[in-house]
C-alpha cells in the first residue's frame, strides 16, 4: 500500500511536487508525513488480545461513539454488516485483513451501545464481543474486543465529538481581519475509516484540522474545522494483478463563520500491485492468472495529512 503526497504551487501550476513517498510496512498506513508519530494516541498499533467480551465507557454522545466504534472495527479488518443506532457488527474480511497486514482469522465483532451518564458525565457504554463468524461455536482464533475499544477511545480523544458538517456558523463580521499567507501549513486528520471500495469518483471525504492554526496570536483556523476533499480517478482492484487506485484532492477548510478557505494538497492512494513474477509463474501453470487481482488500500480514521493554504487569503476571525 503506497501513499504518495503531492502538492502544487500557484507559480508552478500543473506541476506536482512529490513531497513524500513511502511504502507502508506497518500494520496500517496512517499518515503521509514523517511526523505521524506525534499523534496523541497510537492509531497504528492494533493487535489482538484480552477478553472476548469487554465493556467500557466512552465519553462521547451515542452517535459519535457509534461512528468511532465502526471506524475502530474496520481498522481491525472488519467488513461492517450492520451499523444501526445501537448495534454495530461485522466480520473480518480477507481482502481488508491483507491490506491492513493484520493476523488472519475467522472472527466476527459485535458492539452494543447504550447512552449513559457515568460519574455525572454523559457518554456511551459500549460492549464489544468477539465471536466466530456465522455464529459458529467455539473460541475465535483472535480476540479484538480490547483493541477495538482502545482504538475507539483514541479516536474520541483525537477528533471532534460533534459533526463538523452540521456545525452552526459563528458570525465574525465585526472580527479582526488577518492575512493568511500562501502555503501556511494546515495539518488535517481523516474523520472516518475509508477502504478503497468506499471511494467513488467525485465523492466528498470529510477531514478535520488536527490543531489550531495561529497567526499573529489569533486562531485563524480552529482545531476540528471541517476540511473537504474529493475523490478523483478512483479505480478498484483489477485483473492481472492491478491494485486499487484513487486520488484525493483537498479543496477547502470551513472556518467558523462558514467561509471556505482554499487548501492545496493531493494524495495518491495506491494498493499493492501483484508481483509480475508471481503472475508469470501462475501463467505457466494455469490460465486463471488474468483473474488474479492486486490489493486495495485503506485510510484509517485519524490519519494525518499535511496541507497548505492555497494563495494569500484575508479572513475575519472572532475577537474572542
Amino acid at each position, binding site marked *: 500500500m503506497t501513499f504518495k503526497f503531492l502538492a502544487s504551487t500557484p507559480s508552478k501550476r500543473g506541476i506536482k511536487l512529490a513531497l513524500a513517498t513511502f511504502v507502508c510496512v506497518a500494520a496500517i498506513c496512517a499518515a503521509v508525513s514523517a511526523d505521524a508519530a506525534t499523534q496523541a494516541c497510537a492509531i497504528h498499533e492494533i493487535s489482538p488480545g484480552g477478553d472476548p467480551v469487554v465493556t467500557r465507557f466512552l465519553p462521547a454522545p451515542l452517535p459519535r461513539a457509534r461512528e468511532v466504534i465502526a471506524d475502530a472495527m474496520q481498522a481491525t479488518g472488519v467488513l461492517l454488516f450492520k*451499523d444501526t443506532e445501537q448495534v454495530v457488527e461485522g466480520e473480518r474480511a480477507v481482502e481488508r485483513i491483507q491490506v491492513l497486514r493484520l493476523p488472519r482469522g475467522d472472527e466476527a465483532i459485535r458492539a452494543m451501545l447504550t447512552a449513559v451518564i457515568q460519574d455525572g458525565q454523559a457518554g456511551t457504554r459500549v460492549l464489544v464481543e468477539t465471536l466466530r463468524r456465522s455464529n459458529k461455536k467455539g473460541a475465535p482464533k483472535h480476540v479484538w474486543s480490547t483493541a477495538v475499544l482502545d482504538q475507539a477511545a483514541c479516536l474520541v480523544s483525537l477528533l471532534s465529538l460533534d459533526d463538523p458538517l452540521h456545525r452552526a456558523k459563528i458570525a465574525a463580521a465585526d472580527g479582526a481581519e488577518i492575512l493568511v499567507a500562501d502555503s501556511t501549513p494546515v495539518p488535517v486528520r481523516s474523520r472516518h475509516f475509508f477502504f478503497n*471500495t468506499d471511494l467513488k469518483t*467525485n465523492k466528498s471525504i470529510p477531514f478535520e484540522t488536527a490543531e489550531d492554526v495561529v497567526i499573529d496570536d489569533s486562531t485563524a483556523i480552529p482545531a476540528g474545522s471541517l476540511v473537504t476533499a474529493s475523490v478523483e480517478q478512483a479505480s478498484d482492484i483489477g*485483473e492481472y494483478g492491478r491494485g486499487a487506485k484513487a486520488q484525493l484532492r483537498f479543496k477547502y477548510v470551513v472556518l467558523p463563520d462558514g467561509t471556505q478557505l482554499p487548501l492545496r494538497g493531493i494524495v495518491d492512494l495506491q494498493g499493492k500491485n501483484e508481483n509480475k513474477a508471481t503472475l508469470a509463474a501462475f501463467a505457466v501453470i494455469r*490460465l486463471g492468472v*488474468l*483473474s488474479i487481482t492486486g490489493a486495495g488500500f485503506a485510510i484509517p480514521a485519524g490519519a494525518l495529512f499535511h496541507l497548505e493554504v492555497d494563495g494569500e487569503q484575508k479572513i475575519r476571525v472572532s475577537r474572542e
Partner: protein
Amino acid sequence: MRRFLGLLLLVMSPYRLRGETPPCGIAIVQTAGPNTDERFVAAPPQQVKAALLKALPALGAKVHKDEGLHIEADPDMGLRQSIQQKNKDSGVRGKYAGLGALGKFTMDLREATQDGIDGSLLHVEFHKNGFVGRLGGEGYAQPLSEETACLTKLLSTNDPASNPRGLELKDAGPLHPVTLPDSTPLKVLLRDPLYSKKLEKDSAGQAVNFEVAEDVVVDGATIIRRGALATGHFTNVQKTKRAGRHAKIDFAFDSVTTVDGQKVPVSGANEQSKGGRHSETMTYIEEGGAFALFVKGTDVFIRAGTSYDLQVSGQHTVQTGH
C-alpha cells in the same frame, strides 16, 4: 489462443467501481432468529405493505400472491444470485456468502394499537424448503421484518411524483427569500429498488426518482422538505451477456425540488453499479472450458432506501414560509 481469448474477454468486461450507503445501516442482510416474527410497526397497514413490497427483493424474494393484507413470496433465483455475488465481492465468506436457505414467506398485516399509538401488526413466517435440511442457517423472518420496519421509517409517506415539494409543514408564515448556498449538503433515498433484469437496455436517459431524506434548513428556514422529489437519469444500462459479462446500471443526479417548487441542480458521485466486481470469465473458462462462454453474468440489484450524499450546485434564492 486460450490466452488471447482470455485477454479479449477481459477487455470486453472492464471493471466499474461500486458504492452506496445501505438503508438503515444494514449492509448485509443475514439470517437470524426464529422462522416466525411478529412486531408492531407505527404506521398504517397500507404504508407498511408498501415498505414490505420494497423490502422483499432485498432478501431475494418476489411476490407470488397478493391478497390485500395477506402476501406470499417465493425465492427469486436471479435476485439471490445478484445478492450472493454482491456479498461475495464485499468480502462475505462462506459457501452461501451470507445468504440463507431457500424458502417461502407468508406475511399478514392488520391494524393494531400499542401504547396508545395506532399502527400495524406485521406477522412474518418463513418456511424453509424441505430438502435443504439444516443448510442455510436460521430464519429469514426477522431480517424481513427489520428491513420492512426500516423502510417504513426511512421513506416518507409523500409521493414525490405527485407532490414534488415534499411533506407539508404546519405553521407556515409569510413567504420570505432565503439564500440556498452553493455546496449545501443533502441526502436522498432511492424510493424503489432497481434491478437490471427489469430495466430495458435502452433505458439510458430515463428518469430515476429519489426522495429527500431529511429537511434542509438554512438559517432556521426550511428550504427543502423531507420527501421532496430529487431526480436523476440513467446514463448507461447494460443487461447481462454471455461469457460471464455482468449487467451494469449507471446513473447521475440532476435536480431537487425546493419548498417553492424550483428545481435546483445537484451534484454527487455518479452511481456506477455492476453485477459483479470482477470479471470471473477466466475462472469460468478454467473450470468449465468452452462451456463457460455460454454462462451469463450477474444482474445488478440496488435496494430501496439506499442513500446518496449530494450537494446543491450554485447559489439559489428560495421563497420559504417556514
